[in-house]
């Protein structure tokens, strides 16, 4: 059974007086536990697609089912609850909260989204810090971390609530090549360790080779589905 299914998925934006079709009738299935990349040049519709899978945006036409839920049919509050319960997010700019330490950034969704008790939060944060190799930097704030370290913390934060699916929009775009590979390795390892499905977007041809499944987007259309590259 598919984790994510899109059928004839379209998205049209209004930009000023012009309608812009970001996605044009896209169809795909993603299996649980997959390590998937959406690739394509800037403006091809990758971010739009990830936003819709994440319930941040609604399709203009077609259906999008995530974890057996018609994600486009959820209202604002229900979509927030769905994200909090099932999804993790990794951002291109890391988006760590600057006043919190690495450990506290990882703890944030456990407290603010899922309201875990303190002892469980403490144990989960320690587990994730260990898993992403950031135990030594637990008490450092984002401005004391390198780009790679920040993204490690962001990966740990995305995994904190045991999400079934992690969405990562250009997670390596702000990192150098070596660090980018290490982050992808980490994501893969986390997938192995926690059984989480990862979907990420990239425009970097070297990075896309790290995915097991790649979907190529061009001008809002899915032009190619690649097989396992691992």
């Amino acid at each position, binding site marked *: 059974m598919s984790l994510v299914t899109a059928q004839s998925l379209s998205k049209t934006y209004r930009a000023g007086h012009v309608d812009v079709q970001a996605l044009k009738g896209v169809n795909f299935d993603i299996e649980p536990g997959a390590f998937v990349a959406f690739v394509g040049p800037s403006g091809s519709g990758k971010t739009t697609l990830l936003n819709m899978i994440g319930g941040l945006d609604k399709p203009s036409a077609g259906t999008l089912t995530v974890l057996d839920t018609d994600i486009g049919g959820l209202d604002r509050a229900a979509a*927030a609850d769905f*994200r909090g319960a099932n999804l*993790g997010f990794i951002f291109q700019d890391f988006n760590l909260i600057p*006043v919190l330490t690495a450990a506290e950034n990882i703890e944030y969704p456990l*407290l*603010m*989204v899922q309201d875990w008790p303190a002892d469980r939060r403490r144990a989960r944060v320690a587990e994730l810090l260990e898993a992403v190799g950031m135990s030594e930097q637990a008490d450092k704030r984002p401005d004391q971390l390198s780009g790679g370290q920040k993204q490690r913390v962001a990966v740990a934060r995305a995994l904190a609530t045991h999400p079934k699916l992690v969405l990562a929009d250009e997670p390596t775009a702000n990192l150098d090549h070596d660090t980018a590979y290490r982050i992808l390795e980490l994501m893969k390892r986390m997938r192995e360790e926690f059984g989480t499905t990862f979907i990420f977007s990239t425009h970097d041809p070297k990075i896309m080779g790290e995915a097991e499944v790649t979907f190529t987007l061009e001008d809002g259309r899915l032009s190619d589905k690649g097989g396992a590259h691992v």
Partner: protein
Amino acid sequence: MFKVTGLAARNLARYWRRTLLTAGLVVLGVVAVLVFISVAGSFKSLIVGQITDSMLGHIQIHRRGYVASIDNLPLNLNMSPGQVAKVEQALAANKNVEAFSPRIKFGAMFSNFTETTSIRLNGVMPSREAATVPLLPKRLIAGSAADGLVQRGKILVPRILAHGMKLKVGDTVVLVATNLDGSVNGKTFVIQGVLDDVTGPGGRDGYVNIEDARELLRMNKPEVSEIAVRLKDPHHIDQTRAALQKALAGVRNPKGEPALEVHTWERLTPFSNIAHMIDLLDVFIRVMLVGIVLIAVMNVMMMAVYERIREIGMVAAIGTPPRRILSLFLTEGLLLGLIGVAVGTALSLAVVWALNVWPVHFAFARQVFTLAPSLPLINITVIGVIVLAVAALASLQPAWKAARMDPIRALRHT
């Protein structure tokens, strides 16, 4: 591990200069209000205490129409013995009445055998007058009240008169008064004491024994001009006045109208207008505080939301419920208010303490008063609640905006 409050505090510390400036404004407002309330309250209590405890009492009862003609001290508007008895009965039955003193008020010519002037006089029962206006004996700047406030055949004269006519304790003077029937009578008195002048009606009156007053005025019946009343709890003055008015409603004049009037001190002295003005200023300065807190906190919270749009986008994207985002920003605003209240109250208490250690003296209507300000807990609580409520109100709009923010647009914000 962190809590929402801790996160809010850290967010405030993120822009510490701005937080300091805003909190400083709130502190300034709180200090201004609390110190004003304290000093103005002290000033008001001093003057009101002086007026009620040395002259007027808290309440006065007169025959109907007497107060309207009080400047003439009309003898034909005195209360009859029957009316006095009913008033005394009503006063004895009221639990908030501590003491009361019947008075005969009249005008007379005052002579030291070489000079003559006019004087306003009170004929009083010494022990009851001292119990009703306990500060009156303390106004003696010469002479003594040790053997009774004013003995038979003696007079207490106001300082202004004693000074002007070069009189001293033990000197003999003559009082000449016009009686109710228009005839004139005179009587010699020995000066028992000199009273310091005080602000307000009756502040420069003389005092004689009520029996001497009746003798001088050739009163056949024991009439009185007014009955001054001292209350156990002056805070319940309006209720007590209403209760007495009700109890005396049955005393009617020949026209069938109520024969007696009950007035609080506020009706009898122009200082009540100043007291009301102080109350008005108190309200005004509280409104200013509300304005300061509202503008300062709202400004800083709007900036906080604007500067953290991407962060808000991130927390919304990962599924933080809108109510949590709302509570985070509300907590930040409340913390600003709390800092302002805590520091402002501490500073205000320090200022009030300093004003008690190094007292401020001020002159008011030829008298010198010493301020003794205090800050009752109720005032601190009320101001604290006002500031926190306004801080919450000021944070509400920015917090609501943050909670309703579209995550995609927020994440795209640069």
